[in-house]
Structures are given as C-alpha cells and as structure tokens.
C-alpha cells in the first residue's frame, strides 16, 4: 500500500465513522444517565431530512446542522415524555420512535428526491488540498465537531460536578434522588442531548457523505451506534477508537473488493455482522474481567420510580 492510498483510506474511514461516532456519543450520555433509547435510527432520519431540506432551501450548511439538532431534540422529547414523565417501557418506546422517525422522514421527504445539494466543504480549505496535510486538516467541520465532542464529553463525565451527578443518576437513581437531585430532570437533559447528537449524525448523511435525500438513507447506522456504545463499554475515549474501528471494518470491505487481494475473499455478510459480533465479544470480556469501571450503568433501561 502506498502512502497515498493509506491517506485516502483514512479519509474515507473518518467520513464513514463520523455519523456513528456522533450518534453514539449522544447515546453514551443517555445511557450513562440510565436510559436506553433504542430510537437512535429514527432520530437520525429526522435529522437527515431536516438537514437536507434546510440546506436545499437556504444553502446554509451550518443552519442545516443546527436545525437538524433541534429536530433531533424535538423527536427525543417524545421519547423523554413517555419514558420519563409517564415511565413507559424504554425498549418499546425506543422501537416506536424508530418507526415514527422512519415514517415521518419519508413523509416529509416527499418531493425532495432527485434534488441535489452540496456537501459541507472542508473547514480549512487552504490545507485540504495538500496531499499529506489533508489527512489531518482536510475534513469538514462535522468531523472536528465529533472529535471535539469526544473530549468534551470525556471531560464532562470525568471532571465536572454535573457529570458526576449524571453518572450518579445512572448508577443509583434512588440514592441520587434521596440526596436531592432531580433524577427525571437530569435524564431529560441527557435524552435531549442524545436527540441533538442523533439529529446532527443524521445530517451527516446529506451534508458529509452523499449529498441527496433518499428514504431510509441512514440504512441501520443508528443500530450500529447503539452497538458501538456497548462496544466502547460506555467510555468516550474508547468510543472514539471503536467508531474508527467500525468505520474501518465497513470500508475495508469495499477497498478490498475494489482493489482485489486476500481480504476480498471474506464474504460481505461476515463484514456486515462483524461490528455486532465484536460487541458481544466485548460484552463477554468486560464481564469476565469483572472490572467495575467497565460495567453497564446499573440503572440502564429501568424506569425511575421514586418511592413515596
């Protein structure tokens, strides 16, 4: 492999990884607060159509990203209201949210097929053309946003008081409640943050990867994001590694097939199943090590019911 090809592969991997990284970062915060929102795919699709429509009508990519985030928040509030205020079952509500997002985005997208938009350009156009520096500086703002958010979330969870409270709410909601924190309030914030990130992740599809709208265009990446959070054992820095690893798996298949070589003999179905199988393996490894720091948040998926 030449240096040039390695750089090219890295650039493609970064692109493919960015939406799952952004969506998974949001879901990580949600899960650390003890909530399992399986509606990521649905929220991403709502973000994707919103981002597409805004960039199509205004041509402003940053406005599109902002409104995609807002649309994600709005969608996540359906989930939040049902599971937090009405303590409905999170699994069922998340699935319903995906059904909703898929249907809603297709409905809103009617008439927008066969309409091209433009991708968001590189953040540092001066350096993006350089054959070597572009591997670091050649990306659009969405890629740097994802990287920034990895650090921001790591810092938030590890170093801030608010992060501590959020983790407390996810680990032991009853004690958090008894010392006076609003469990429901914290979880609402987390769910809304997850919605915003899923919305932006969805907007990556028309703005970063393929400048068009097609029904269901996220094609299951929301579920990969859910797997990724688990794969990363709920740690932001591992999530970064995991996202690029998943992205590498997703694109290596294509590079191998397009270029020939021994890897191209692996059936595509195995490539596609690999992220999920790897996630199960990680789950098993975590459990065997019995390392408390890598366990799932204790309250994950359980509704909070204050005893009164």
């Amino acid at each position: 492999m030449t240096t040039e090809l390695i750089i090219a592969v890295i650039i493609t991997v970064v692109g493919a990884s960015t939406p799952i990284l952004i969506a998974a970062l949001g879901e990580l915060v949600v899960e650390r607060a003890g909530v399992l929102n399986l509606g990521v795919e649905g929220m991403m699709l709502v973000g994707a159509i919103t981002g597409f429509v805004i960039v199509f009508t205004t041509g402003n990519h940053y406005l599109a990203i902002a409104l995609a985030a807002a649309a994600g928040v709005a969608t996540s509030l359906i989930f939040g209201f049902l599971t937090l205020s009405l303590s409905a079952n999170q699994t069922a509500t998340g699935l319903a949210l995906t059904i909703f997002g898929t249907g809603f985005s297709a409905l809103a997208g009617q008439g927008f097929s066969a309409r091209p938009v433009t991708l968001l350009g590189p953040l540092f156009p001066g350096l993006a053309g350089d054959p070597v520096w572009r591997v670091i500086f050649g990306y659009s703002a969405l890629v740097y946003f994802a990287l920034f958010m990895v650090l921001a979330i790591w810092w938030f969870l590890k170093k801030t008081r608010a992060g501590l409270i959020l983790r407390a709410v996810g680990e032991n909601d009853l004690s958090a409640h008894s010392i006076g924190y609003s469990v429901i309030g914290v979880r609402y914030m987390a769910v809304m943050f997850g919605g915003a990130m899923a919305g932006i992740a969805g907007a990556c599809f028309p703005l970063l990867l393929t400048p068009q709208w097609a029904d269901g265009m996220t094609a299951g990446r929301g579920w990969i994001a859910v797997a990724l959070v688990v794969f990363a054992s709920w740690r932001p820095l591992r999530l970064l590694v995991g996202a690029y690893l998943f992205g590498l798996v997703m694109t290596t298949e294509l590079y191998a097939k397009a270029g020939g070589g021994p890897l191209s003999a692996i059936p595509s179905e195995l490539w596609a199943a690999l992220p999920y199988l790897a996630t199960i393996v990680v789950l098993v490894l975590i459990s065997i090590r019995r390392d408390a720091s890598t366990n799932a948040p204790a309250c994950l998926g359980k509704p909070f019911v204050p005893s009164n």
Partner: protein
Amino acid sequence: MTINRRTILKSGLTAAMLPLLSSVAFAQDEPLKVGFIYIGTINDNGWNYAHNQGRLYLEEQLGDAVETTYVENVPEGPDAERVLRELAQSGHDLIFATSFGYGDYVLKVAQQFPDVKFEHATGYQRADNVATYNARFHEGRAVAGTVAGHMSETGKGGYIGSFPIPEVVMGVNAFTLAARKVNPDFTMTPVYISTWNDPAKEADAARAMIDQGIDVITQHTDGPAALQVAEERGIVGGFGQGADMSAFAPQAQLTSIIDNWGPHYVNAAQAVIDGTWESKDSWPGLKEGEVQIGPYGPKVPEDVKAAAEAVKEGQIDGTFNIFTGPINDHTGAERVPAGVTLTDAELLSMDWYVEGVNPPS
C-alpha cells in the same frame, strides 16, 4: 369457538366468490384500473422512481381511459401476495409487479383471478394471465462501455452492484466487452454491496474504487451517490443509471442509461383495453425506446460521441450485438465462438464474466 370458526369459514367462501362478482360488475366504459407495486418508496432516486415515472407517463398518455394506483414499500414475501390480492379484488384489471421477488406471489394470485392481467418485471415465470417484461439495459451498458473505453486514462473501470444476479452480470459483461473493443487493456472490477438502498455505502464503494486507480465508475444500484463522488473527486466520470442524473453530477456524468418504462405501460394498458393483451415475455431495448441514452456530458469529445452513437445505432438497426463472439471468459478460455450470438435464455442465466473482469470471489 364454533361460532367464530363458522364466521371465518363463511368469510372465506365470500372471499372466493367475490372476484366473480366484481368482474361481472365491471362495465366496459369505465376506465381501466391499473395497479403497480413497488419494492421501495417512489423517492428512492432509482428503480422505483423510474417505474413510477412510467406510471405517470401512462396516466398522461391515456388520460381518462386509465386510472392508476400504486402501493410502495411492499416487501418481497407474503406481504406482496396480500397487496396483489388487494389490488385484484378492488377491481384492478392490469397489475404490474415491479420486482423480481414478487414472482411466486404473482403466479399464486393470478391463478385466483384469471380475469386480471399481471405483468412481472425482470421475472421468468409466466402463465395465461401473467406476462413478464424487462428492458435490455445491457444495450445501454454497451454504449456506456464504449465511452469508457475511449475516455478512461487508467484503463480501469468499476461497477457497483447490489447482488450478482444475471441482469447485473450481463451489464458488467456488456460494458467490459464494449470498452475492450476500444481499449484491449481495459479491466473492470465489480463490487457487490449486498443492498439496494444504502447511498452512503455506494458512495464509499466509489471512493474505494477511485482511490485505487479506477477512473470510470458505473453502478447498478440506481442512486446518484457514486456519480456525486465522481464529480467531487474530479475523475473522468461515470454514468447516470435509470435516469438522467446530470443535476447531481454536471461534469462527471458522461452520459446516462435511462429506464423508460412508460411506453411499455402504455402498450400493455392499450392492449388490455383493446382485448389484444396476451401473455408473453417482452424484452425491448434501445430500438423500442425502452432504454434510452441521455445527453452526453461536456467532457465527452465529438469523436467519442460519434463512436458511442454508432454502437447505439448498430444495436437499434440490428447490425451490432455486444454478445456476439468471439468472447472469452475471465480465465481467457473461449466461451462464445466467433459469429455466434448468445441467446436470450443464455443471457438471462448468465453467471460468468468476460475477459477483462476481475471476478469477485
């Protein structure tokens, strides 16, 4: 429980009788009801979109004489059977099933509704009231391959497909044969992505090709994703599939292969109205206008245009067939002797690649 069972039984009997009633009630001067079922949504920028354009063309051409209905997102399975029956029961006289996997169910439902005509796209099983239809897309591929052979600088082409079904293999082979008539060193790499609807994966496949020296890309997955990447990267180019996609890639689209289902839909509907419809396999191509070649892109020089037009005209007047031997397979062994042309049946079960294709493992 017995009451329940009896009511179900009764409903079954009524269900069996109703088709007779409905065909009796159908009067001659009412518009012909034509139904379509699509595997995806009409906003897929591709296959289903093109069929829906054909439906709209049918409405436009025959006006009040027809009334059309479509059902989208119908999975290839028992759900299709239900939808087909729904259309037949609600008085549709002609039903187009536009995806291969509907075949079993078209035959089943057609048996129950002998008065309703069915047409199954890309299928091969027929019955008295079931016809099949397809388009000779490979004729368009031969034109595109000619352009690619002239224009590719690296001599490497890529082909993004969903699954290696005969129709796709035919396309790969026609493209490669045509390109190698111009440039004998031209090679073709097909990449199958195992999905019909994942534009981001198509785009990544295109990136993987371009990064490894492929400078002409064509695709069988219908969406414009690969072309958009070609435009963004500034490679020699690619080809619109299904429709003119110059809006997505004004520079990179060298030309496009347009699926024009409209005329077939008009002919079939007119034949039912006239009482001349019969079960057959129609497989029209460039000659009948069912496959069209879109405008050439700005990069295509005049002499290349002329060469491509010659291939097109040759296929229209019957003097040129891309699948006439000598043709070697990818190992270099002769597969079709000189002067022999592959039959339609041989094309429809094609599972081998011609020389110059790097076969996927």
